[in-house]
């Protein structure tokens, strides 16, 4: 196939689309013709892949114009135009497709208008509420509208969970047959320059400290566990608006006794703590997709996670992890205790998670399904 990938970010830029596109191009290039169109002044070349940079030094309207022109030029003989994110690359992609008739497939990772708000530290609500009520401040109004326009005009929209697929159908009025779930493979595995020692009864979480992460429930669970396991330790990596409340407020003092807050740390440090833990825990009351669990699957750390739509798609209860009801410290503690006390169960969950990782979340599974979508077989 002749595949053109339109991405706003490409290495050396940081960010998920940059890393994803680079990995995908490395995989696809052996059997397909891959061209990448990106906003960049400089880029990391990939042998066998044509990378077309559109300079970022121009003003926004000029950049969009040049990007659209590049897409028209390079998609003339392409089979598919695969767009990362709907706004910055999506709009030029839809415009280009009107000229070239090439089908546009959009990879919707998250709501870009909401992401902008989060970056500006507003973060009034999670994406689900944002989509439903559409309280869209003026600052991101244009991004939201562009995104909506692109999603409606794309031939296919790919999302990282069936939950988001349903959300887009219900709240943004997309047609069910146009929205497809394509699970995201885990990020590149990091190598640490020193070994990690396992720490008995350590529970690890990595999450933004926002109300819907419900870290307070995890903290209460750790206090309950401490009756049987005095050395239990809950390690929380991440920062956010709830940090002060959780870490320093007086009324949380008693439930804080077995918790360590790391704040924002590097991915390497997260991995270090994850590897040292006995259990990986997610107590979120809202999740868009199961991606946060994949690192634990890969590192063979058993998972306990809340039974909420985005997360539960990631695994099967009792087979590759333990599901718990949201906001219930007692059942959370019981599930963790089962893992602490039952090595057989622990091994079973790890084996199940590895299988899930291979069958559902691997790059092989991802690429195969992506190509099926490109070839219009779905």
């Amino acid at each position: 196939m002749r595949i053109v990938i339109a991405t706003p970010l490409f290495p050396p830029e940081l960010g998920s689309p940059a890393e994803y596109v680079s990995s995908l191009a490395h995989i696809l290039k052996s059997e397909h013709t891959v061209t990448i169109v990106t906003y960049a002044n400089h880029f990391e070349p990939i042998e066998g892949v044509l990378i077309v940079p559109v300079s970022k030094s121009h003003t926004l309207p000029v950049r969009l114009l040049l990007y659209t022109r590049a897409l028209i030029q390079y998609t003339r003989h392409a089979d598919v135009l695969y767009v990362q994110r709907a706004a910055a690359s999506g709009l030029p992609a839809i415009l280009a497709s009107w000229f070239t008739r090439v089908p546009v497939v959009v990879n919707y990772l998250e709501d870009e208008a909401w992401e902008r708000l989060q970056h500006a530290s507003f973060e009034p609500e999670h994406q689900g509420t944002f989509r439903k009520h559409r309280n869209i401040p003026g600052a991101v109004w244009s991004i939201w509208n562009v995104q909506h326009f692109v999603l409606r005009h794309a031939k296919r929209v790919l999302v990282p969970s069936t939950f988001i697929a349903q959300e887009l159908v219900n709240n943004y009025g997309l047609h069910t047959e146009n929205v497809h779930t394509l699970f995201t493979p885990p990020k590149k595995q990091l190598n640490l320059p020193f070994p990690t020692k396992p720490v008995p009864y350590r529970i690890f979480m990595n999450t933004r400290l926002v109300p819907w992460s419900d870290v307070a429930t995890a903290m209460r669970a750790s206090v309950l566990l401490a009756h049987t396991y005095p050395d239990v330790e809950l390690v929380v990596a991440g920062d956010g608006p709830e940090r002060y409340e959780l870490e320093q407020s007086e009324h949380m003092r008693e439930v804080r006794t077995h918790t360590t807050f790391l704040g924002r740390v590097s991915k390497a440090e997260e991995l270090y703590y994850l590897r040292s833990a006995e259990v990986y825990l997610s107590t979120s009351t809202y999740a868009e997709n199961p991606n946060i669990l994949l690192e634990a699957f890969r590192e063979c750390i058993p998972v306990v996670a809340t039974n909420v739509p985005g997360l539960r798609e990631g695994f099967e209860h009792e087979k590759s992890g333990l599901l718990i009801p949201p906001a219930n410290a007692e059942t959370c503690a019981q599930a963790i205790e089962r893992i602490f006390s039952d090595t057989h169960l622990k091994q079973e969950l790890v084996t199940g998670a590895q299988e899930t990782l291979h069958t559902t979340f691997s790059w092989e599974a991802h690429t195969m399904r992506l190509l099926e979508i490109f070839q219009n077989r779905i």
Partner: protein
Amino acid sequence: MTTLGKKEQWETYCAQQLAVVTPLLINEGFVLETEQPHLEGERYVLSGPKLVLYGSRNSDNMRVVIKITDNAHEAKELEHERTMQEILRTIDFAYHTFHAPREVLFGRHEAHTFYITEYISQEKMFLEHTLEEQFFLALKALEAQEGSHATTHKHLATIRKTFEVYEAPRYIQNLARYRDEVTTLLPHTKDVHQVLTQALHMLEKNTTLLNVYSSFLTHWDFVPHNIRIHGRDIYLLDHSAIRFGNKYEGWARFMNFIMLYHPKLERALNTYVGENRSPSEYATLTLMRLYRLSELVWFYATKRAQTEGDLRVLTDARINLWTKAIEAQLTGTTLDTTVIAAYKKTRDDLRDEDEKKRQQTLH
């Protein structure tokens, strides 16, 4: 100027300045501490006409760091540092913000300009942490810098007037100048000239790589004494050392420095980049290490004329050490531990007591 002359001159300058600024600061509500480590040791060779002092605010006894000068150029630098800090606080394209000491007071009184910031206390010095802790602290601070990449028209408009922007040509021009000046200053050390020329050629051959990783925020003096660790937060000090340049410039400075103090940490960081980032990133790290090492050789070559006695011998030992470090980078090897040990012995034998005391407070 002889060492003795320069040192005496610095001591006289400090005494005169302290006599003037002490009542000035009292008037502003601050009192100076008795011990002032940043006036001692080799500071007289390294510092410009500016005092860095410890003190406290009378109203609440808060410990502060006071930078004060009556030199017009240094005053501009202080103002510039302050502007940089303000812009960094509001920069909207950074993925991660990093902490900086809070400003307590900035002002002028007759000829003096002063910039007073809170003192960030820390339980332990950087080098007192375990290897793992040091590694993750350094990585966190380096990744925070990498998170700011100025690429778009809007980004560049934000930073252009305040920060220096370095791309490949500037690094190459600088290195060529370092090489030429070292050749003039040290005419009898052909090996140094040769090594610097090889480093320059490496950069010239890899201009594209230098550009690919340009326009990142980088602290070009990112070393343990310019960071403070409070709880789990890292504070970057000396914002005048921030510019938009190669992503690996800060890494290079840190790794070259830490090679002397904790070689295992240097190797851990080197392995981390080698195993987790692209080959072109690893190659860029090597290029920046060559650049920063060459700069060290140049720096000590330019200071050599101001020294004599033990400090002259020590300066020569430093030039020799960093030249060997460049050779190691050029051949893809690590600097021999016996070379490092021999240098450290020379350094410890030759450093005066004041400098030893000052060093203890730094890392």
